[in-house]
């Protein structure tokens, strides 16, 4: 039996919508599952206390500090480099050998698995340069890891700035650099901010790379040379050892809320960017 074109379209659409609905269902399930089991255990004490007896009791305060330190450092190092690369690619060169090589490097870096970044950070930053398992090693490793994201999003944001803006600036006698600094970057800022926020989200979720570079010490880090366990790694260790499920769920809930918050922030920035570009 052959279906008529209209009937086969109806069947195909039904199948694909079912799969799409299932995808949305999975997303909702994951978020609600974690929040429902975790949020009741997220108290002020949990957020502000240090863990006791390997995380069975107490809170996650040192891990929050560690996560912010490692991820913050990664993004702070990566953002200027990434934005400068994007400026060079968009404002200072035309398409050629050089840009092809730079893009190839960025695209390949984006595909390298986090465990490879971890191995590299371990042998280069921690052992080779003598930084040890520390916030510094972890931050530098993450900086390299999020660099392609920042380059790509900044590039898109800069390209979206209308050409007329630049022409007006040149017409007023500004140099290229003044134009970039005062006209292009200013208009592209919300778009660049979106990329930075998304990179921060990626850094916070990262586990394999920070495990091999920042270590898993549970104390409150005192300097950049201290080892510090991040939230995601703490969750992994709790979940694997299976001791206090309530603490594991609560940690996961904090991670999910942070992820949702950062995505919302990125969405808000993007909206502003589009409003501006129009």
């Amino acid at each position, binding site marked *: 039996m052959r279906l008529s074109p209209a009937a086969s379209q109806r069947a*195909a659409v039904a199948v694909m919508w079912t*799969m799409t609905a299932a995808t949305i269902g999975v997303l909702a399930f994951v978020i609600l599952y974690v929040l429902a089991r975790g949020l009741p255990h997220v108290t002020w004490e949990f957020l502000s206390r240090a863990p006791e007896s390997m995380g069975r009791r107490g809170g996650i305060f040192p891990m929050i500090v560690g996560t912010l330190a490692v991820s913050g450092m990664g993004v702070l190092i990566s953002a200027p480099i990434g934005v400068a690369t994007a400026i060079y690619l968009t404002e200072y060169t035309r398409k050629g050998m050089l840009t092809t090589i730079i893009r190839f490097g960025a695209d390949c870096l984006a595909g390298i698995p986090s*465990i490879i970044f971890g191995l590299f950070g371990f042998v280069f930053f921690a052992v080779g340069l003598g930084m040890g398992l520390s916030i510094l090693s972890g931050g530098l490793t993450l900086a390299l890891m999020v660099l392609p994201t920042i380059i790509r999003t900044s590039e898109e944001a800069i390209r979206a700035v209308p050409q007329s803006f630049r022409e007006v600036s040149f017409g007023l006698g500004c140099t290229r650099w003044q134009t970039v600094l005062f006209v292009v970057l200013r208009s592209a800022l919300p778009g660049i901010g979106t990329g930075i926020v998304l990179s921060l989200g990626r850094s916070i979720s990262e586990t394999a790379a920070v495990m091999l570079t920042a270590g898993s010490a549970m104390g409150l880090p005192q300097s950049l040379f201290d080892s510090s366990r991040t939230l995601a790694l703490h969750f992994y260790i709790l*979940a694997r050892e299976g001791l206090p499920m309530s603490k594991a769920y609560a940690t996961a809930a904090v991670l999910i809320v942070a992820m949702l918050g950062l995505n919302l922030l990125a969405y808000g920035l993007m909206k502003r960017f589009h409003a501006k570009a129009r």
Partner: protein
Amino acid sequence: MRQDRIIRFILMLVAFSAIAGLALIAFFIFKEGVPLIFQVGWRDFFLSSEWHPSEGLFGVFAMIMGTLMVTAGAMLIGGVFGLSLAIVMTQFSGPRLAGALKPVIELLAGIPSVVYGFIGVKTIVPLIRDHLGGPGLSVLACSIVLGVMVLPTVASISIDAFRAVPRSFWEGSLALGATRWQTTCMVMLKAARSGLVAAVILGMGRAVGETMAVIMVAGNSLAIPDSILAPVRTLTSNIALEMGYASGLHRKALFAAGVTLFVIIMILNTAAITLSSNRARAKGGAK
């Protein structure tokens, strides 16, 4: 003007940091890992499944097979679901609905891999154990979890590929009387082909490289799995599991596993990049 030249030069130097980083990574991973492959002999490294670090046996064949099996499973699930999400968003919904579906992809991509792994352990693993048998921690569980994790990659790159097809193709097909579904199958899938293949390849790269979620649901046994219900260990999870206590030759062997992984990923990356740049060139030529 002189100032401008200096700035251009500084920016150019900075712009090389991504490729320099890639080169550094390659150099150090290879420097640590490659000597061991020669020391053990490449046959005994790549073609043997005997991984007993205490006895100096470092064969990664089982782990390579494990990686291939879970990647294939993940692509089957993530590829089909990701592609249909992309088709629904680009061919069968207006801008408003597509805009509402976009956050689904972003949030799925944003959930930490450890959370995926954990939920897999809590929900999928017991389901498999109770209804299909085996230990539950298995190739199947791993494929399902990885499938969900690669879905956003496949979907977002497929969407870009569909959007890059000139609108006139779509309109022309509809004007000839084809239904939207016929247009999708006969025109859009063909026109977006290289981009869609790139999406699948990049999704594969993601599945091959994923670590933490795999450790949690794969069971990590060292044998080559004889069914999809058997536990499995991948290249990545082996590194993450043993790096904490490995030293000497053992640590070098883990770097050698890293070399293997790096080479696989670079092949996939290069294929995907070449495919997308071909597409860009074809588009430029059509103008």
